């Protein structure tokens, strides 16, 4: 049994703790209400403070020479104060009726902010001059509404919409999850492309303004008790894109479907990246007409699809280079191993044709690559299993995502033995499967970005940096920067193998008989490989991967043009135009102006959508900002 003194002590301790806690509260109250009274009182008298957020500028996208790819413009956004608007039950119906807005939407928005909240809630972005004028005139009829200027995206020319990506309003679930640390309904968040990938860096941080208001909620002016908290503008993203080359590349593909990629071999920086058909980013920055939205969801053209990372195609003959190098390195064949090509290979009942029905005669590895002889690779394929194909593909990064700094990258498919076992039964796959795989057809699929990684590894002789857009994030305010780094893939092959690959790919362009010899330029030497990807839905897709100048390549390109036939005819010329332009720029020559067709995306023509003014950082908000040459609404 416990001692009475012990229980006394325990009770005493509890009473002591309880009284201490209450005394701390009293002490705090004495401090706030008696000692610090002057200070607090002045706050209260002059106060009736209302907080209002200040939107930061979203970071710009810059090309490699610092030219803006996307800027900001001032946008007039209508805000409403829930407590005030709900006080007058006719206010919302009147407002909705005047502008033909949905009353339910306005009500929901205000409720999200809290029925009794005095914090302004974003209601309608981008209101027109007429709407603004009306509201200014009828200010007294609509207490609790205010119009604030906010920066919003502006695009000077329709460039690389898939890569830059667009913004969308944050939804309630994302807000609840706290995806934005200072998010409120109506805020924009990166939805696609670089806007999405770098959202956290581009976004910046909101500032806060403390405003003095009177009993009716009218703003009297700033307060001096709490200094406004300036917003922190988002970081600019400096990309490796080159505006001139990008324009050029877009023009090359105008009216067609496909992808153009151009990358620096040493750094992995993408100089140009085009996916066609495309769309105008302005449609996503303002309000989108429904007929455009319907076009964008066209199931066939799929203009919203970023074909660079989401289009999957058979690699076709591009793969022959990778398979040959792998077979040589593994000792499956040596470079003198020869095959006689009579234009076809008979396999039991079936005849597999070479693309050249006349035949290539005696073909060794060099000639097989240069002239893209199918029969040579059929014969090689007969020595292999799908797992070999998969191993060869994995050497060149074709079995994994490239890790490019865009979200939503797909990886294609390179099936191995297990996949075929599952499909046809154990060892049930036929030799026909191997014939197809050996020439990059059949079930094997890659994205153009994966093909670029492959081409980059060949051009870099085994050293392949991750293809990427973002180079540096720059803090405009402080000048500070963060250099973005990416992993480098390293493929070590013997010098003999490299020598073979180099000579053969160069012969594709430089030597008579090469499939891209028609593109040979006197100014420089180039190397590459053409491809023609059979397509069950129609005309074959034309591929080209190439690099220049040989023997020390600096840029590498991958081009695919859908349903355009042979790579040598439809794809290689595009790549060489880019090579020419790249060299012109390097030698300090200007580029010829790209043709007019660039102005509007071919998928959906919309006459008045393309903006014309030059971009600059947005401004004109409630805080000091650099002057803005904006596309004013007036």
């Amino acid at each position: 049994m416990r001692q009475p003194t012990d229980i006394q002590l325990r009770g005493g301790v509890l009473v002591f703790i309880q009284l201490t806690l209450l005394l701390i509260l009293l002490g705090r109250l004495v401090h706030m209400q008696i000692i610090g009274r002057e200070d607090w009182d002045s706050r209260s008298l002059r106060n009736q403070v209302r907080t209002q957020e200040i939107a930061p500028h979203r970071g710009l996208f810059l090309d490699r020479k610092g030219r803006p790819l996307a800027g900001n413009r001032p946008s007039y956004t209508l805000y409403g104060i829930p407590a005030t608007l709900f006080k007058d039950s006719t206010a919302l119906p009147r407002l909705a009726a005047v502008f033909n807005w949905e009353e339910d939407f306005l009500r929901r928005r205000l409720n999200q902010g809290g029925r009794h909240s005095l914090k302004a809630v974003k209601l309608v972005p981008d209101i027109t001059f007429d709407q603004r004028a009306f509201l200014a005139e009828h200010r007294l009829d609509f207490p609790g509404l205010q119009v604030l200027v906010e920066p919003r995206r502006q695009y000077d020319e329709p460039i690389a919409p898939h890569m830059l990506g667009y913004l969308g309003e944050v939804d309630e679930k994302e807000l609840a999850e706290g995806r934005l640390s200072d998010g409120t309904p109506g805020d924009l968040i990166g939805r696609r492309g670089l806007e999405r990938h770098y959202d956290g860096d581009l976004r910046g941080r909101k500032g806060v303004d403390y405003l003095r208001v009177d009993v009716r909620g009218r703003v009297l002016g700033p307060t001096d008790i709490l200094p406004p908290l300036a917003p922190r503008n988002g970081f600019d993203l400096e990309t490796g894109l080159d505006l001139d080359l990008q324009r050029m590349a877009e023009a090359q593909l105008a009216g067609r479907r496909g992808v153009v990629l151009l990358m620096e071999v040493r750094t992995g920086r993408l100089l140009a990246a085009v996916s066609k058909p495309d769309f105008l980013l302005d449609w996503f920055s303002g309000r989108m007409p429904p007929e455009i939205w319907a076009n964008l969801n066209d199931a066939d053209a799929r203009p919203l699809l970023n074909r660079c990372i989401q289009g999957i195609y058979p690699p076709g003959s591009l793969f022959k280079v990778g398979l040959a190098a792998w077979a040589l390195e593994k000792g499956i064949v040596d470079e003198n191993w020869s095959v006689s090509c009579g234009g076809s290979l008979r396999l039991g009942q079936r005849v597999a044709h070479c693309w050249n029905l006349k035949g290539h005669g005696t073909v060794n590895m060099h000639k097989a690559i240069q002239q893209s002889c199918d029969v040579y690779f059929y014969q090689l394929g007969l020595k292999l299993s799908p797992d070999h194909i998969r191993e060869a593909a994995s050497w060149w990064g074709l079995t994994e995502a490239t890790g490019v700094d865009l979200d939503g990258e797909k990886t294609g498919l390179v099936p191995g033995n297990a996949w075929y076992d599952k499909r046809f039964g154990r060892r049930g796959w036929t030799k026909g499967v191997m014939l197809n795989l050996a020439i990059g057809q059949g079930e094997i699929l890659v994205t153009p970005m994966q093909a670029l990684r492959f081409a980059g590894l060949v051009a870099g002789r085994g050293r392949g940096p991750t293809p990427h857009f973002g180079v540096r994030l720059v803090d405009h305010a402080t000048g500070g920067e963060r250099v973005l780094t990416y992993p480098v893939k390293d493929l070590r092959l013997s010098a003999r193998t490299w020598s073979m690959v180099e000579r053969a790919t160069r012969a594709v362009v430089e030597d008579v008989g090469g499939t891209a010899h028609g593109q040979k330029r006197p100014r420089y030497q180039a190397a590459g490989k053409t491809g023609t990807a059979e397509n069950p839905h129609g005309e074959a897709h034309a591929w080209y991967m190439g690099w220049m100048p040989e023997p020390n390549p600096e840029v590498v390109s991958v081009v695919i043009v859908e349903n355009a036939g042979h790579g040598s005819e439809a794809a290689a010329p595009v790549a060489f135009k880019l090579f020419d332009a790249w060299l012109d720029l390097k030698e300090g020559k200007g580029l010829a102006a790209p043709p007019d067709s660039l102005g509007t995306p071919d998928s959906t023509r919309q006459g008045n959508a393309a903006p014309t003014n030059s971009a600059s950082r947005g401004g004109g908000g409630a805080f000091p900002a650099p002057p803005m040459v904006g596309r004013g609404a007036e």
Partner: protein
Amino acid sequence: MSWLHTLLRRLDWTLLLSFLALMAIGMTVLHSASGGQETDYGLRQLLWFVMGLPLLLVCALTPPSFWFAISWVAWGVAVLLLLLVDLMGLVGMGAERWLAIGDLHFQPSEIGKLALVLSLARLLSDNRADLSQLKWVLAALGLAGLPLLLVLTQPDLGTSLTYSFVTVPMLIRAGLPWSWVLILLSPIIAAMCSLNIFVLLLFILILAAVLYYSEAGIWVMAAALSVSATIGFALPQLWTLLHEYQQKRILVFLNPESDPLGAGYQIIQSKVAIGSGGLWGKGYMEGGQTQLSFLPERQTDFIFSVLGEEWGFVGTFTVVALFGVLLTRTLVIALKHRNGFCGLAMTGFASVLVFHVVVNIGMATGIAPVTGLPLPFLTYGGTFLWTCMAMVGLLLNFSWHRRDSLT
């Protein structure tokens, strides 16, 4: 008139009057806080109070033996209801705290407060209960731990903190060895020390020394030390693993003023309101912050700020003093109570109330995080008011029987 004499002698007037005074102040302030709105919350609070009176009377007039008898059942029912809420929460995909029976909505976690106190009191007042034995300590912790976890998953941080806060004073009152008190508190202390490695090491050393001399078992000692060390050392590592926005959430929770647009908005407005009240206040219905609706949640979580603005230090001091009288009186009776069950239960109720008072007023004055715990007797709201009234009924009841040793 001997019954009148008995009533006058035995009824705990101190408790009753301080309770009624707090209720009256609460309704007055609520009336002012609803200025300019259609609903008069002061009047509605009076309605809630009148409807709660039968409950209070039942709690006050049923003999303590009844409450002793039903304490296990009460615990079981509370846990079942909490489970039910959790399951409904799963179905409803959100934070569910309410159960609806017809038109009546109530929060099982409120019943849980009463049930937890009663069942712990019963366990710890058992004649065989020996808190120097590990199994009894674990039994007590289990009794509190299960409802605590259920409430935490709702998720309701404030209430689960209440549950854990209540348990320790009851264990102390029941004679838990002081070394064990230290062991129970050691994870919290270790967490606080984790900011500085030397302080942490010092604490672990002290803990080891105390445990060594207290002759705690080797396993208990090892467990306590390793738990403290793990928490102390792992916490900073865990912190770095969190996403930036998760870190920010915690920082804002601990210091709301770092987020002036969000959580800090209420705190800033509340502090301006209380501070500007000064010694005498701005006068009833005269508070600028309150009347202009700058103060959000002013009927519920921030009712104290309205009091502070309109009645000044005089008002806030009165309320805190009244709570002091009520709570000290409760603890003193709890201490002297001849019956272990009643004494422990009273300790528990006092702890529930003092925790709410300290956290709520601390929040309004900006020295405690925003947990959304209401202020007893003053905050508008049915379920919580009724819980408090039930507690007051039980306190009056047990105090009436303060010289009876048997239940």
